[in-house]
């Protein structure tokens, strides 16, 4: 099953009330209007150095020297 189908199934089970979904939807529109739209295809990804879960500093450019990188931005474990 595709991720899209799995998410659709999850959403159907969760069945959030319309007034809650309206707030979530307005929140998403607010973010779109803020201009936070991310990088474009073909653009160079800015380098960074951040600590990982074991406190080790990970530098993007170091990893790129070893191969392609899949970068995922997520909101949190909650």
């Amino acid at each position, binding site marked *: 099953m595709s991720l899209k189908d799995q998410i659709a199934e999850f959403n159907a089970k969760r069945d959030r009330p319309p007034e809650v979904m309206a707030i979530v939807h*307005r929140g998403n529109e607010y973010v779109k209007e803020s201009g936070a739209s991310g*990088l474009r295809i073909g653009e160079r990804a800015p380098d960074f150095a951040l600590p990982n879960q074991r*406190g080790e500093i990970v530098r993007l450019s170091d990893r790129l020297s070893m191969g*392609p990188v*899949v*970068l995922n931005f997520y909101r949190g474990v909650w």
Partner: protein
Amino acid sequence: MIRSLGADLMAISPELPDNMLTMAEKHAIPIDILSDATSEVMKKYRLWFEVSAEVKALYLEKFGLNLEKYNGAGRWELPVPATYILDTGGIVRAGQADPDYTVRMEPAEVVVAIRKIVGG
């Protein structure tokens, strides 16, 4: 699958390192879970936003979710959920960013994008 193609996988959130995982998880997870505790990287990638007052109230009152517990005091800040596939020159070869967190890049598309880079 992603790693067997020679690609590295890293995940970035605004959460403080101590709040992210248990000690066992920290050592068991084979990918890098990175903490952007100053929001600097989210901003560089143009993904950073401050949660609207209305959504903040929803999280606090309806979901019992206080982002400050995870992100630190005063940090009602999040990234637009996003996935980028970078070639070895750091160029974005494929990707997706959508404020609607239920819209995600298909893992199969990620694999296709890596295959195009490595020629596999």
